[in-house]
């Protein structure tokens, strides 16, 4: 690992030691964050998978019913029946904070509360398959919204985990080794200077003693 280009001074050493301390602390915190995010993510994604399978299955059922309805009814009358929806949905969106990741929370309200009052057409000119298709669709709607919420959350969490993991690795494998190496380099350099200074002083002392002896003789 390459060392940084710094002056080997005592001041630089203190500065680097401080940075190392901060980096170690940051590393520990980020690692904790990553682990917690991962735990949350795995829970979420497992539920997400189950829900998606359920929703897909139900939607396929809806499509099958629709197919039959289309076969029984003329396309004009089918379209006419569905032209003006009775049911309206309003969606309230808020956000929830999971480990500093803002994930959406969807909350919906339907305009008519009664589940049996959702059919926007008279029953005389339409087939029963259409009724069951729309009935199933209305049932699957809450799950669909939950799925949307979960899927978006897991996407956002996955991104955050990726980012955090990169940071943890950068600290662990680049910054912290670099700092330790540089600190070692500076300490060694300073020690070396100290030793050099000491020998020089001893040498000077010897020379002075020698001079004094000569003068007294």
């Amino acid at each position, binding site marked *: 690992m390459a060392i940084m280009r710094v002056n080997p001074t005592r001041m630089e050493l203190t500065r680097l030691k401080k940075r190392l301390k901060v980096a170690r602390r940051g590393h520990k915190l980020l690692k904790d964050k990553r682990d917690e995010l991962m735990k949350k993510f795995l829970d979420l994604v497992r539920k997400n*998978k189950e829900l998606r399978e359920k929703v897909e299955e139900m939607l396929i059922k809806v499509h099958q019913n629709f197919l039959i309805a289309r076969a029984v009814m003329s396309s004009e009358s089918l379209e006419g029946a569905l032209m003006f929806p009775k049911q309206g949905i309003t969606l309230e*969106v808020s956000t929830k904070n999971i480990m500093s990741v803002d994930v959406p929370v969807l909350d919906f309200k339907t305009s008519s509360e009664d589940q049996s009052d959702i059919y926007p057409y008279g029953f005389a000119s339409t087939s029963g398959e259409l009724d069951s*298709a729309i009935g199933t*669709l*209305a049932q699957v709607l809450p799950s669909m*919204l939950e799925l949307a919420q979960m*899927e978006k959350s897991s996407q956002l969490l996955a991104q955050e985990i990726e980012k955090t993991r990169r940071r943890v690795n950068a600290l662990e494998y680049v910054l912290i080794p670099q700092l330790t190496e540089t600190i070692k380099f500076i300490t060694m350099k300073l020690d070396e200077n100290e030793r050099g200074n000491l020998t020089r002083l001893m040498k000077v002392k010897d020379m002075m003693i020698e001079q004094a002896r000569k003068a007294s003789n």
Partner: protein
Amino acid sequence: MYKIGVIGDKDSIMGFKAVGMSVFPVSTPLEAQEVLEKIADEQYAVIYITEQVAVDIVSTIDQYSEKKFPAIIPIPGNAGSLGIGIKGVKKSVERAVGADILFRDE
């Protein structure tokens, strides 16, 4: 106040209108892309898109994956499931964990 949109071929999405969603029938990938880009800027928090349409405009859909809204969710169309939705879940697992650990057994 947010709305829910559905993009897909007309036959697949007609029913969603009855439960109060806004439907946008499209027939070509280009058209789908335009519609998606248009309604993504509007007040749509969730956009469902049939897999048959989604498969051609994956790159456009991916643009929105980083943003908080809208959530673009693939759903099976009337021709059945293509497995794109479940693939998306798999992708986020791979992204987060680095390896696929949920779907190994399949």
